[in-house]
């Protein structure tokens, strides 16, 4: 059953019905027992009474049976002739009987309670023997009448119940509906929301049952709003960072078009080439960020030899990054094996090495070393460039942040890409200035990544 309302309605109705039924059954049985007890007592009382009348000679046992002494019985409009009475002589002659009593003996028992079937009807009979007068008094109840009494009591209970159950069902249906109103209101509020409306839903006046849902929803709204804000900032920055080089390209192109001076034109064209390189790199980095953010688990972890990776990166970068620096890779790195997403590690290392190359003075040395301790292995990429001024340190991994010692080709994205990629690969980026100058960019690989 999909609907909470229908489910609650069904449960409530069935349980109420069952309660009613069991109450009825209980009343049925207890009434029957009670009625039996009371009527049996009455039988005994009546038998004793008749017996005592016979003792007082009000009924003469010697009178012929035909006269049929009238025995007074209590009359009730619905339960008339409830009691039947027979007086037998001990030798088996019927001396007297009440009007409703059958002709045959009501009980074969000498004394006490018994049940006899006469003409298909069951009688409950109490017998008293009066040895003194030589009579046996039998007083009996027709059980059909007893059953009718009990049935009437139960019917008296069931009829109003049959009337009340539809009423009850309606009430249950309506009150369940009313009880679910806060849910409907919440659904209505959510449905009426604008896609950009990420304000939390007010928690006041919500039932405690919905509060956890509401809190979870508000939490989600918060996260979505945060993500959207970051996205907007990123777009704003990306717009600036893309439009500025485009403006530069256009301006230089217009200079080249406007000038008749060959020297100016050549310089402008040179600037255009450099600008296209820079913009191309920026576009690549923006795409890197987008792909890292979009696909956390596109490629599973694999075993990586960081030494081989760094050497292949060096060969690739020295080709066109144009750095005049030497890159040295610690032999220890070739013996290290780590389990990591190779794309992410390579992306991080590439950006760090590019950074080192762009900031290294001509003839400088970039050292890739391995440091190991109990908790982690650290791949350090050390350059002898200007390092990062302490006051800029907290901001360098912010996107598009470009510090005082920015490289000409820098976009302000390299370090933030490295940090993002390492974060996604469960590793971390650590930046510190070296004691003898330059930056040490460190890839910290926790112990569990090391094979």
């Amino acid at each position, binding site marked *: 059953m999909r609907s909470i309302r229908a489910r609650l309605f069904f449960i409530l109705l069935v349980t109420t019905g069952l309660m009613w039924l069991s109450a009825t059954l209980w009343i049925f049985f207890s009434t029957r027992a009670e009625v039996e007890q009371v009527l049996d007592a009455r039988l005994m009382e009546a038998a004793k009474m008749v017996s005592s009348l016979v003792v007082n000679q009000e009924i003469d046992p010697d009178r012929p049976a035909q006269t049929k002494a009238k025995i007074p019985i209590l009359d009730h409009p619905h339960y008339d002739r409830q009691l039947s009475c027979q007086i037998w002589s001990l030798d088996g002659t019927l001396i007297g009987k009440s009007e409703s009593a059958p002709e045959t003996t009501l009980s074969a028992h000498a004394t006490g309670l018994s049940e006899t079937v006469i003409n298909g009807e069951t009688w409950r009979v109490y017998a008293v023997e009066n040895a003194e007068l030589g009579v046996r008094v039998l007083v009996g109840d027709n059980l059909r009448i007893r059953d009718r009494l009990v049935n009437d009591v139960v019917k008296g209970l069931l009829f109003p119940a049959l009337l009340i159950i539809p009423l009850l069902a309606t009430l249950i249906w309506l009150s369940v509906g009313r009880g679910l109103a806060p849910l409907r209101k919440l659904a209505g509020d959510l449905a009426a929301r604008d896609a950009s409306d990420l304000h939390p839903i007010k928690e006041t006046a919500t039932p405690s049952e919905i509060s956890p849902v509401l809190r979870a929803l508000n939490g989600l709204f918060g996260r979505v709003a945060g993500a959207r804000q970051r996205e907007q900032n990123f777009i704003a920055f990306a717009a600036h960072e893309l439009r500025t080089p485009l403006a530069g390209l256009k301006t230089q192109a217009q200079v080249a078009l406007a000038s008749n001076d060959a020297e100016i034109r050549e310089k402008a064209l040179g600037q255009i080439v450099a600008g296209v390189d820079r913009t191309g790199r920026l576009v690549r980095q923006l795409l890197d960020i987008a792909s890292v953010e979009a696909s956390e688990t596109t490629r599973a972890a694999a075993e990586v030899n960081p030494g081989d990776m760094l050497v292949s990166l060096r060969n690739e970068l020295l080709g066109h990054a144009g750095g005049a620096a030497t890159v040295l890779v610690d032999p220890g790195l070739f013996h290290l094996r780590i389990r990591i997403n190779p794309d992410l590690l390579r992306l991080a290392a590439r950006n760090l090495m590019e950074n080192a190359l762009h900031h290294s003075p001509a003839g400088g040395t970039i050292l890739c070393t391995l440091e190991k301790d109990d908790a982690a292995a650290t791949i350090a990429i050390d350059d002898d460039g200007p390092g990062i001024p302490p006051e800029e340190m907290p901001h360098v991994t912010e996107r598009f942040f470009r*510090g005082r010692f920015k490289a000409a080709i820098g976009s302000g994205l390299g370090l933030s890409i490295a940090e993002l990629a390492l974060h996604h690969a469960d590793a971390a980026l650590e930046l510190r200035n070296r004691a003898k100058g330059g930056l040490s960019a460190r890839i910290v690989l926790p112990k569990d990544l090391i094979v």
Partner: protein
Amino acid sequence: MRVLIVEDDDILRDGLKVGLGLAGFTTDAVATRESAEAALAAGSFDAVVLDLMLPDGSGSDVLKKLRDARNDTPVLLLTARDTVADRVSGLDMGADDYLGKPFDLDEVAARLRALARRSAGRSTALIEWATIRLDPARQSVEKAGTPVRLSRREYSILHALMSQPGAIFSKATLEDKLYGWQEEVESNAVEVHIHHLRNKLGPGLIETVRGIGYRLGSDI
């Protein structure tokens, strides 16, 4: 007309400097907020081309500082964020005009000329003095309807003098308008240019105010 360019992107800054130079402006270019503030404090510029995103701060800080110092130099903002809200906030900060990147070099030049014209209190693009007519957009000069060919420096001096008729310009002020920082100033250059201008346009056009400088003369 001397313009300060504040832009941190090397290629764009170079393009603006060279391009506006080709359009007849004398240009100085800086890359940071700090150097922009130093330049504005030191020199007199006829206009500033200001980028909003600078590595060491925001162009809006430069603008605010400039206006707080009661400096009315026209400012043309350059920015990549060109939503209406950005434009409004830029203009409200005291900018005189606003251009979104990427822009057209000719448009930058035209807007700078318009800013200079408005700051000089003129509404027409052409500047006239007696029979001389100067067109800043074309960098052309006519005398009584006949085009007169002037060198870039001669034109700059004439433009400066005609922008504020009656005002006296010292030799140093004129040199300021002629040369950027990196350019070597020849010691008697201004005198030479003025001599040429008098030859081409009439001896009475520029009066020498002894010991002070030069101004436009009425007797052509």
